[in-house]
């Protein structure tokens, strides 16, 4: 469904991605592992049009994303949960959700249904719905960021390090959410430093190093033979 073929990318004059090839099929959870700075987040940003793609192709459901403006991706079904969460700090929780809810073709029944669904996943958000986004705790902001992506009713979520900086209890919650989304049929491209979580949630895993993909295997294989993980991640 989402295919990166031999993608090169640049930030300004820095050549940051070299020939990256990744595929995420419909409904799959795919993991992207690697040390800090190898280009995992950059890969997501390149899909979102924030880094300059200078080589290769990115297609989604067969359609080349080349000419698509950054604000068109959500409409195609691609949602992004960035590493820094990027909550609209001065907007309330509800308003944050509305940035995704208030879109073309939305009807009041669907609007409310989506809202209720998201509140069911994250009761704390319902409780804090009129609070400014900036006043939420780190964990709550992460939940809001995921909820915000969910209301777009996406086909795929680009999930960037959702457990970073979270307490262990919250990590477990994130894990459950990833499972739940998977059960709903939403594809996820999961960038993470947390190896056990990734191996548990994902079907296939790509490992990156120095701006390119070095290894590609099923999560089962990687669980069975931990040497590969050791080699690339030193864990």
């Amino acid at each position, binding site marked *: 469904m989402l295919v990166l073929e031999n993608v090169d990318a640049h930030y300004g004059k820095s050549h940051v991605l070299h020939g990256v090839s990744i595929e995420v099929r419909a409904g799959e959870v795919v993991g992207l592992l690697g040390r800090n700075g190898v280009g995992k987040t950059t890969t997501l940003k390149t899909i979102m049009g924030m880094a300059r793609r200078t080589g290769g192709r990115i297609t989604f459901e067969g359609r080349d994303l080349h000419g698509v403006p950054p604000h068109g991706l959500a409409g195609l079904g691609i949602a992004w949960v960035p590493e820094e969460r990027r909550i*609209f700090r001065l907007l309330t929780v509800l*308003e944050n959700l*509305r940035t995704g809810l*208030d879109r073309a073709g939305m009807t009041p029944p669907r609007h409310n249904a989506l809202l209720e669904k998201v509140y069911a996943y994250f009761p704390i958000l319902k409780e804090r719905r009129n609070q400014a986004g900036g006043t939420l705790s780190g964990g709550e902001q992460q939940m809001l960021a995921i909820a915000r992506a969910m209301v777009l009713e996406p086909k795929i979520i680009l999930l960037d390090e959702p457990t970073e900086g979270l307490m262990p209890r919250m990590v477990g919650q994130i894990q459950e959410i990833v499972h739940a989304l998977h059960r709903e049929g939403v594809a996820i491209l999961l960038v993470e430093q947390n190896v056990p979580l990734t191996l548990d949630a994902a079907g296939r895993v790509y490992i990156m190093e120095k701006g390119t993909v070095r290894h590609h295997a099923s999560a089962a294989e990687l669980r069975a033979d931990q040497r590969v993980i050791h080699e690339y991640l030193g864990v």
Partner: protein
Amino acid sequence: MDQIIIQTLHGLVNGMVLAMVASGLTLIFGIMDIVNFAHGDLLMLGAFVGASVLGVTGSYWLALVVAMVVIAILGALLQITTLRPLIGRDPLTTILATFGVSLVIQKYALWQWGPSVRQISAPVRGDFNLFHLQYPWYRIATAVLAGLIIAALWLFLKYGKYGIWIRATTQDRVMAQAMGIPVPLVYTAVFAIGSAMAAASGVLFGPFAGVTQTMGFDFTLRAFIVVVVGGMGNLGGSILASIFVSLLESYAAIIVSPAQAVIVSFVVLVLTMLFRPTGLFVPTPK
């Protein structure tokens, strides 16, 4: 004492008109980092359009509405043709571009309407009595109307669907795009709104002193000052700053000539930039 009361009223009324001008400017700056040099000239053009419509139809309110609509459309066209190509470039290029637009608009107005001063007659006549003083109703009405328009803007931003889009884009353009918000369209819409507010200010201010091609620059300059003093991109701050600065100027006009009173606002600007560059009415950033 009488002088002080009158000047206070002047300050408040002028402050409200200035607040409307500054709101448009700060909205535009807050969302797209554009210092719109031509803002005052859009005000001027709005006043001329209003004067013309008034001359043809005799209706002040129609003049106000038409001026706002026409200038909003003009603003949108300007943004699309001259400012969109400059997105991503050095922000100073937009100052230069809007400066160029300002020159063109001024001379166009001269060409279209000639050098004589146009009049916009006030829709409301007569004075009202405050103690033993008389103050024109119209000026009070202007302040109230300006306040209503600003309040409408505020409500739109706070509760409207598109208001949320505008606020989200102002805070984080990239994330707004990722959420599917059509940012280029939002930019154009905000520029149009800002222009409409400038035009409204022009029509409201028209009866005060007549309409001339050069009336815009003074407003642009004061609006810049107020936007900086109020905190760039801060709507509430610029409104407070407008009233503050206008009051100070009005009081200063008791002592020095009006032409010199404008130095007061300059001094306030300079002091603000030196000691509280984020704005006088903005809480100190942590």
